[in-house]
């Protein structure tokens, strides 16, 4: 036989899983939340989303071109960062801000550290915190969906008074009829996306459930078992968005099951701390970013026990 045979070491077959398919699934899972944002806040949210996504993809392409690397903007990872950032912005944000945010996310947080797989924190979240720190007024001016007046978000209301705002019902919080960022308002839409991700095997429900569970337990204890208070904290602000779509980011979260539980509990604790005792009304972005930084440490010290390693 004179034909050339390919020789490699085993295994000789590969699964259908692929990085771009995984990223595409996350984008698909975010569609309900994006649509909910558009429904409640109007057409300009679409422009914010498109600007953010386009800026993220363009930045990635330009930098990869400059670094003479293969251009991988079609792998959905930059698009996903742009989309996540847009969903983490107030609906009436000036149009230049998503662009600045996306450039920061891709250029500084992702590409400066080596591109896909090498960012140590979530690029979209880092960009959001960067925007909050730089332009706090623009980042905290909210639009209320029903009567289109500017008003504080539910979490900001409770922050000032310490009591549950009467204007906000748990049901409205659940479906998204409240003020807040474009993508975070409808817990329902986010949970639909989350179920899709679990069904597709993209994420395990471990991090979201432990994260939200930790917040639930501590707000329940803090309020002396006020169930409404707990539900309010679960559904208001960016917790559902953060727990399902941000904290589960592969690159910046731990790899082992045990590590993920520690990480998720950490996220939950810090969120509750900031919300109840800190200076900001909401703490999801900060808590996830902080735990992102702790991730390498968790991965270093929390290893799975090797098969046959413990028991005799």
């Amino acid at each position, binding site marked *: *036989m004179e*034909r050339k*045979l*390919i*020789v*490699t*070491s*085993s*295994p*000789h*077959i*590969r*699964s259908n*899983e*692929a*990085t771009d*398919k*995984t990223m595409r699934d996350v984008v698909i899972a975010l569609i309900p939340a994006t649509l909910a944002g558009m429904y409640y806040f109007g057409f300009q949210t679409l422009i914010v989303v498109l600007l953010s996504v386009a800026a993220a993809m363009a930045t990635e392409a330009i930098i990869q071109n400059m670094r003479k690397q293969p251009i*991988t903007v079609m*792998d959905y990872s930059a698009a996903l960062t742009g989309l996540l950032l847009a969903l983490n912005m107030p609906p009436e944000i000036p149009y230049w801000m998503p662009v600045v945010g996306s450039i920061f996310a891709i250029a500084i947080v992702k590409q400066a550290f*080596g*591109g*896909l*797989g*090498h960012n140590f924190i979530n690029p979209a979240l880092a960009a959001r915190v960067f925007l909050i720190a730089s332009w706090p007024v623009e980042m905290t001016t909210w639009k209320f969906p029903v009567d289109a007046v500017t008003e504080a978000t539910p979490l900001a209301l409770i922050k000032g008074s310490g009591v549950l705002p009467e204007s906000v019902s748990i049901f409205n919080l659940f479906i998204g009829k409240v003020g807040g960022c474009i993508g975070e308002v409808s817990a329902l839409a986010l949970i639909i996306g989350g179920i899709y991700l679990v069904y597709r095997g993209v994420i*395990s429900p471990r991090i979201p459930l432990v994260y939200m569970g930790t917040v639930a337990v501590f707000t329940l204890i803090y309020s002396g078992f006020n169930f409404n208070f707990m539900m309010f904290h679960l559904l208001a602000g960016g917790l559902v968005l953060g727990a399902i779509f941000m904290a589960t980011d*592969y*690159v*910046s*979260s*731990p*790899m*082992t*099951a045990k590590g*993920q539980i520690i990480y998720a509990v950490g996220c939950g604790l810090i969120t509750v701390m900031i919300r109840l005792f800190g200076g900001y009304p909401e703490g999801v972005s900060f808590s996830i970013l902080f735990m992102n930084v702790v991730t390498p440490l968790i*991965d270093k010290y929390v*290893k*799975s*026990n*090797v*098969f*046959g*390693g413990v*028991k*005799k």
Partner: protein
Amino acid sequence: MNLLSFRGGIHPPHSKSMTEHLPVEKALEPETVVIPLQQHIGAPCQAIVEVGEKVKVGQKIGEAGGFVSAPVHSSVSGTVKKIEKRMIINGTGTCVVIESDGLNEIHESVVPKGDVETLEPKEILDIINEAGIVGMGGAGFPTRVKLSPPPDKKIDVLIVNGAECEPYLTADHRLMLETPEDVVYGLRAVMKVLGLEKAYIAIENNKMDAVLSVKEAAKEYPGIQVVTVKTKYPQGGEKQLIYACSQREVPSGALPMDAGAVVSNVATMSAISKAIRTGMPLIERICTVTGDGIVEPKNIMIKNGTRISEIVAQAGGYKGDPGKLILGGPMMGFAQFTDNLPSTKTTSGVLVFTEEQARLPEYNPCIRCGKCVDICPSFVQPFAISAYSLNGMFDMAEKYNAMDCIECGSCSFICPSKRPLLHSIRMAKREIISKRRKTK
């Protein structure tokens, strides 16, 4: 039904439908056989025939070269033409080339050895040894050695591996369907050797017909329990099977016997049965010739030493240009650069991929998705070992339990970035072993 299983593992496509319903065919008589003197893990055999000598079927032509070794026998009658180094599956080795006279005269030593009921354990062990029986699942560990544990290791779990978890392969499946009584007979012999009253035959639940047929064959022997295990790769891995059947973990760095267990393949049982009942040593086996690069996939009974190209020809030859030729299954088999190689006692499959299937995808950066960690049946962290290995940090790879890797390839299979995880882990294992040798 409560299916036994282990933690971790993957579900590759079975790809068994091409051959699972095809009865085993007898291969055409080879005109020449090339019999390697090493067909097992351990020391090579010494040739005990000379060029020009006449040999018969079942005649011993290579004497075991050490404790961990197994003799080899001629699979045809004819004349020894050459004894020389030839290409074999993993490199080169001395082979005995025999030209067949087509008569298939049986050697005088091939006579029934008795019956399981009357033979002493020591006698059965000698029969197994003389018949050159090795593990036919893939690794080729001499069976006599496996069945002779040191006196301080008490064996109380015996498992016959009929899982056949490798995709594409159906040789064991057909064996269990067509000659289940051989499997049971061989198992009874092994139970006697080890002094055990109980044994398991483990079969994956994608072969329920085999489960039924083996159950039927074993129904008179209450000590033999046919268990259905979950269809999952690597269910046939020794450590995984022991865990599935007995919930015992083989300690890290140790052998199954350290957990009181012995695992052996169904085809090995069948070979033991033949050696006792007919006296015929291990000179042939069932081989699945399959894949999209084969015209007419088949299960064939092939004689030891048949050229792979002849085996392929009997399955209709290559369909188009073959891209990859694998001996064994797609997960752990060995890719070959030529089909001018002899088959051995462990050639369970000849798998041919088309050029398109043969190409491995380009790999991308690790996105730390953790899938390799989730599915690793050894519970190590493939991504970490691989990263350290690729950076030359083999001490760290060792710290991350690289040596516990069973090389099943599940991590490489599942990786969405198509990273060469197992390849790099193998590299780390080699470096660690060579370092350990140096420091000894």
